């Protein structure tokens, strides 16, 4: 199959790779940063005044990180950003594995301890 016919089907017609953080036409300069700042302020205040429901706090924090990635890092799922986006996805995957894996394993060990940790501490004294 010739390059031209593949291109017509949109398979190789992709933009060149782009560096993360580079201001591009689809963001509107200072307005993009201002929008990000506005979202970040709203989300920060919202998380401060929620009644402390863990799931809600986690959702607000993840939303705020998303706002930072889009408006400050300018990472998108666009064609030039494939490598940046894949690296980000893998980073998020490793972070999730480390944090939730550690919490799961430690909670499991804690639950299977014959004695509570406080007991052990007192025995050592």
């Amino acid at each position, binding site marked *: 199959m010739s390059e031209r016919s593949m291109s017509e089907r949109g398979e190789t017609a992709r933009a060149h790779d782009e560096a993360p953080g*580079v201001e591009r036409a689809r963001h509107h300069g*200072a307005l993009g940063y201002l929008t990000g700042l506005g979202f970040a302020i709203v989300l920060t205040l919202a998380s401060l005044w929620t009644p402390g429901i863990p799931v809600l706090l986690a959702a607000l924090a993840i939303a705020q990180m998303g706002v930072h990635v889009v408006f400050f890092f300018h990472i998108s799922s666009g064609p030039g950003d494939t490598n940046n986006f894949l690296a980000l996805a893998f980073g998020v995957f*490793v972070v999730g594995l*480390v944090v939730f894996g550690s919490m799961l394993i430690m909670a499991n060990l804690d639950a299977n301890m014959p004695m509570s940790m406080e007991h052990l501490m007192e025995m050592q004294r």
Partner: protein
Amino acid sequence: MSLGTLATPYEDEVPISERGPAAIDVTAGFGFWLFLLSDVVLFSALFAAYAVLANRTASGPDGLHLFNRPYVLVETACLLFSSFTCGLMALAFGRRSAPATYLWAAVTFVLGAAFLGLELSEFARMIGEGAGPTRSAFLSAFFTLVGTHGLHVTVGLAWLVAMMAQVATLGFRPVVIRRLLCYSLFWHALDIVWVGVFTIVYLGPSHV
């Protein structure tokens, strides 16, 4: 295919395996992006340690009694606004305007230094109250996590001063622009990590 076609509007049709190496602007930015992600993985280990040890206070003070929310909100505001002014600095060096770059770099530096000052005085107050890193596993994890973030901010401030010296002496040559771009990515990344610290460390105790 002749070499001439590479530089024509048909460039986009060259398959990725035949395009040759990417421009250095792209590879430098991508490499720094990978470094930042690995830095975030480093922080994830510290977050995991904190999450596991947050309730191990060894009968010492817990987060609910140690942390002052309005104080932390001011810290958060300093860092968030410095991230914003860092973005304005990126726009300024993007259009090669030295005065605007210096202005926004100075604002970013002042806000970052204010954040660091607030954090250090919080640490000093806690240690003064007998809640230092040796008091309990919770406090060891706290000082390690928040201290590592503070160390990154310190390095970022030193780097900002170095970059302004380079703008002054070398001007906006491509290598300086690349370094400035990496710097702004680094500074934004610190704000993302702080969102995690703010939520998990400072807002967490309300529901434990």
